[in-house]
Structures are given as structure tokens and as C-alpha cells.
């Protein structure tokens, strides 16, 4: 069993710039990482004999909404800032947990897929892509999972605006 500091030190030693900081919180401390190295870091976390993170409990997308709010055609739009992905990991053998976080720029949110490392990530990444528009590089089948295939936009982004009509059905109340 390893504490968050020990896990962070192991990662920092191995990946140096790819691992940024350890953010301490009352319950889940999280480690921020490089979105384009997350697949390599994940493989290390899963295979290292002192870590053995064999279970990705959940992968979630988050709109940090930390950019500037501007008006484009009368609609509030966020420019700049980041979209994030959180990974909640658990080792069922060593019984420790850790949270990883990667942040990608809002205009081109590209994150490496971890679905080949933990297969449970497959649909979670599709969900994050569907609702936040985060592109997971090297994902085997990245398409919408909840919304219809012809839906436009990503509904859980903070600046998402409902369309007036969808296939001739009025959308607003």
C-alpha cells in the first residue's frame, strides 16, 4: 500500500516533466499529468510491482470553464482555458487508490486513450467525447455513445446552447 506522495515520487522520478504536481485534498489527492503521456504513465501505473493499478474505477470529463466568456452572435461562448479528464484508479491487490488529472486546451482537447490499458475506459472515453468533445487519440472506436450520431455540439460544455429544432422537433420548452 502506497500513499499519494509515494506514488507521486515514483512517477516524478520516472517521467519528470510528464508529471506536473500533486494536489492535496481532504479525500482524494490527485496528480496532474501531461495529456499526451497519460497512456505511458497509465501502463507504468498498471505494471509497476509496487503500484499494480489494475482497476480504472471511473473516467470522467470535466469542463473547467476557466477561459474568457465572450459574446459570439449573441451567445455566451468560452474562449481559452481547459477541459479535463479525471482517472480514479484502484489496485485490488495492494488496496490503494489514486486520482490522475489531465487538462487539454479547450480549442483542441487531445488526450491519449487508455482504453487499451484498461478496457473499462473504452465506453467512458466515448462518453467524455460525446458530452465534452474531448478527442482521445488512438481510441479503437471513438464515436458518440449517448446522443444521436447526427447531434451537433457537446451538451455538457458550460457554453453549450440548445438548438431550436432537432429533426423538426422543437427543442426548448
Amino acid at each position: 500500500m502506497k500513499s499519494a506522495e509515494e506514488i507521486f515520487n515514483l512517477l516524478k522520478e520516472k517521467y519528470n516533466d510528464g508529471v506536473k504536481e500533486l494536489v492535496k485534498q481532504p479525500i482524494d489527492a490527485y496528480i496532474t499529468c501531461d495529456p499526451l503521456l497519460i497512456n505511458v504513465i497509465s501502463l507504468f501505473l498498471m505494471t509497476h510491482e509496487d503500484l499494480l493499478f489494475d482497476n480504472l474505477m471511473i473516467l470522467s470529463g470535466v469542463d473547467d470553464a476557466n477561459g474568457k466568456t465572450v459574446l459570439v452572435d449573441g451567445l455566451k461562448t468560452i474562449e481559452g482555458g481547459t477541459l479535463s479528464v479525471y482517472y480514479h484508479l484502484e489496485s485490488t491487490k495492494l488496496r490503494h487508490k489514486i486520482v490522475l488529472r489531465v487538462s487539454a486546451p479547450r480549442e483542441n482537447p487531445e488526450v491519449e486513450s487508455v482504453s487499451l490499458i484498461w478496457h473499462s475506459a473504452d465506453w467512458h472515453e466515448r462518453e467524455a467525447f460525446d458530452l465534452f468533445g474531448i478527442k482521445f487519440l488512438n481510441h479503437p472506436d471513438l464515436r458518440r455513445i449517448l446522443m444521436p450520431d447526427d447531434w451537433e455540439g457537446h451538451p455538457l460544455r458550460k457554453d453549450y446552447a440548445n438548438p431550436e429544432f432537432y429533426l423538426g422537433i422543437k427543442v426548448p420548452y
Partner: protein
Amino acid sequence: MGILDKQFDDNFIVTSVDDLFNWARLSSLWQLGFGLACCAIEMMATSASHYDFDRFGVIPRPSPRQADIIIISGTVTFKMAIRIKRLYEQMPDPKYIISMGSCSNCGGPYWEHGYHVVKGIDRVIPVDVYVPGCPPRPEALLEGLLKLQEKVRNESIVKKTA
């Protein structure tokens, strides 16, 4: 009893075509076996022995081609609305729709922030009876069915009423 009734021997009933057709239709409203959300649980409870939908002639059918009514029992998403429209179009006339619960009546709790919810199934297909509730109790659904039977009873095959 009119004079006509006395013209025949026993076991003859004189009635109008409208009355006969309406009586047959309202007594065997076969429903499409179709549920969407928590309202569907109440609908299933209504079908079960305690409330016994069958005593009004309501039997769930697995195919839209054998169904007379469709009970929209739950939250209708845009993705599902397309499928519901298609099911409805596959049903033979005369066909009826009961909208069950707040979600399919008007969007319910998703009315403002539900980007994925159709704010009322009547934006997609024509509804005959709205049953309010979240979800409605089986008694409410039975009442909705009785209202629909009332509507069918007053229909005419020569005059279009709906």
C-alpha cells in the same frame, strides 16, 4: 326495447354499426408492450394481477402491427422519439396514444435543463389522453384508460371525430 327487437326470435340484438364497432374496439384495446422509464414500472403494476388491466381488455402485444394503443410511459429522449414515431406509424388504424406521466406530457423535471428530453411527446405524435403524475399511480392510469374508452365510445365510422 323498440318494435324492431320484437320482429325477430330469441338471440337477436338490434344495434347500430357505430355502437357495435365502438363497443368491440373499446373492449379490446390491445397495448403495445413498450416502456421507457419509471412510469413503465407503474404500467407493469397496472397489468399485474392486483390492478388487472386485462379486465378492460388491455393485453400487451409484442408487435406494433397487433396493437391499438401505445402508452408512452416515461421520459422521451430525442433519440427515442424517432423510434416511437416509427413504432406509431407501424400501428394499424384506429390507433390511440396515452401519454403517461409528467415527462411525456411536458418534459417533467427535465423541462429546463434536459438538453436530451422532448418537452412533451405531443410534439412528435398526436396524444389522446394525458395522465398526470410522477409517476401516476395505477389507479390514475386506469382512469386514463376509462377516459380513452369514453372517447372511443363516441366515435363514428362515417364522421371523423378526432
